[in-house]
C-alpha cells in the first residue's frame, strides 16, 4: 500500500488531498457542534433588554419581533414601556447614539400602572380579552371579566376596545418594602421655582 502511494504520483496526490479534506472536514464538523448557535444571538441579546410587555406599541406584534427588526436596522426608540432607560441600554449594546423616545409610538409613563375593570359595569363582551397581549384578563362571554394584576404589564391596549369604558389604568401602589424617597427634580426646574441653594445653580446662569 505504502509502496503504491510512493510509486504513483496521482495516487499520492489523491490520498494527500483527500486525507487533508477528511481531517479538516472532521475538525470543522467538531467546531460546528461546539459553537452551535441557538437562534440569532444578537436578537436574543436585544430581546433581553426589551421590557417584555408584548404591547405592540412599536408597531410589531411583540417584543421579539421588534428585537428582530432592530437587528435588521430598525430604529431603537419605538418602545414607550421601556422608555429612555431601554433606549440607552440598546444604544450601548449596539454601539450607536441614543435617540429620544419617538413620540409617534406613545409617551413614557412616569408611574407603573395596572388595568382594573369596574366589575359592575362590565357587560362581558370579551373584547378586552382578545386585545390583551399577555392573557392577563379572565372571563367568558356575557359574564363579568377581571384582570390578574400580577400578569398585567400596563400596556393600555384593553382600554380602547371596551365599549362601556369600564377599564381604568390605576397606578400600582408601592408596598412599604419598596418605598424610596422620590428623586429630587433636575436643577434647572428647581432653579426656576427659586427653591435652590445659590451655590447649586446650574452653570451659566445668574441669580434670579
Amino acid at each position: 500500500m505504502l509502496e503504491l502511494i510512493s510509486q504513483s504520483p496521482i495516487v499520492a496526490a489523491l490520498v494527500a488531498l483527500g486525507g487533508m479534506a477528511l481531517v479538516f472536514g472532521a475538525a470543522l464538523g467538531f467546531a460546528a457542534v461546539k459553537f452551535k448557535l441557538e437562534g440569532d444571538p444578537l436578537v436574543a441579546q436585544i430581546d433581553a433588554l426589551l421590557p417584555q410587555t408584548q404591547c405592540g406599541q412599536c408597531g410589531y406584534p411583540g417584543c421579539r419581533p421588534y428585537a428582530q427588526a432592530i437587528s435588521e436596522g430598525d430604529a431603537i426608540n419605538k418602545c414607550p414601556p421601556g422608555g429612555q432607560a431601554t433606549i440607552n441600554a440598546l444604544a450601548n449594546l449596539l454601539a450607536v447614539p441614543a435617540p429620544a423616545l419617538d413620540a409617534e409610538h406613545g409617551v413614557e409613563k412616569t408611574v407603573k400602572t395596572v388595568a382594573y375593570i369596574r366589575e359592575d359595569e362590565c357587560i362581558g363582551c370579551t373584547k378586552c380579552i382578545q386585545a390583551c397581549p399577555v392573557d392577563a384578563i379572565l372571563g367568558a362571554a356575557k359574564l363579568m371579566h377581571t384582570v390578574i394584576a400580577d400578569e398585567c404589564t400596563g400596556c393600555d391596549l384593553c382600554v380602547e376596545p371596551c365599549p362601556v369604558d369600564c377599564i381604568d389604568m390605576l397606578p400600582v401602589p408601592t408596598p412599604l418594602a419598596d418605598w424610596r424617597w422620590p428623586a429630587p427634580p433636575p436643577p434647572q426646574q428647581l432653579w426656576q421655582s427659586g427653591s435652590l441653594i445659590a451655590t447649586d445653580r446650574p452653570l451659566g446662569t445668574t441669580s434670579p
Partner: protein
Amino acid sequence: MQEFAVILLSATLVNNFVLVQFLGLCPFMGVSNKLETAIGMASATTFVLTLAAVSSYMVNTWILLPLGLEYLRTIAFILVIAVVVQFTKMFIEKTSPLLHRVLGVFLPLITTNCAVLGVALQNTAKVRSFMEASLYGLGAALGFSLVLILFSAMRERLAVADVPAPFRGAAIAMITAGLMSLAFMGFGGLV
C-alpha cells in the same frame, strides 16, 4: 534569538505586507472606515494569518514535500486557509455576534486575502524552520493590524476634515494610503 527578532521586525515593518508588498489591499480599503471595525478585523486577520502560516507550513513539510507534491501547494494552502477562516467565523459568530454583523462579508473574504496566501507561499519559497515560519506569519499579521488600525484612525479624522470636494471619500483615502506607503519605505535597510 536574534534572527527571530529580525524576522519579526522584517515582516512587520520593512516588508510590510500592505504598504510595501501591496498584498491584502481589499480589507485595507474596505474595513478601515471605523476604528472599532478595523480593530475587530485586525484581530480576526491576525488570528487567521498566524494559524494559516503554522498549519500551511506543517502541511507543506509533512505531507507535500515527502510525497513530492510541491505542485499542489496553492490548492492545498487555499484548503487550509478556507478551513481556518471558517473556524474563525464560527468562533466570532458565537462569541461576538455584533462584531460578526459589523465585519459582514469581509470576514469570509479573509479567505481570498492575498496576504494570507502570500505568507504561506513565501514561507515555502525560503527554507525556514517551523519557528521562523510561524514568526513570519505573526509578523505579517502584526504589520497588517498596525497599518489597518493606523489607517482607519486617519480616515476617521479625514471624515471630519475640510477636504476639497473632488478628493472626498475614496480619493483622499487612496492618497493617504500612498503617503503611508512612502513613509514605510523609510524602514528599508533597517534589517
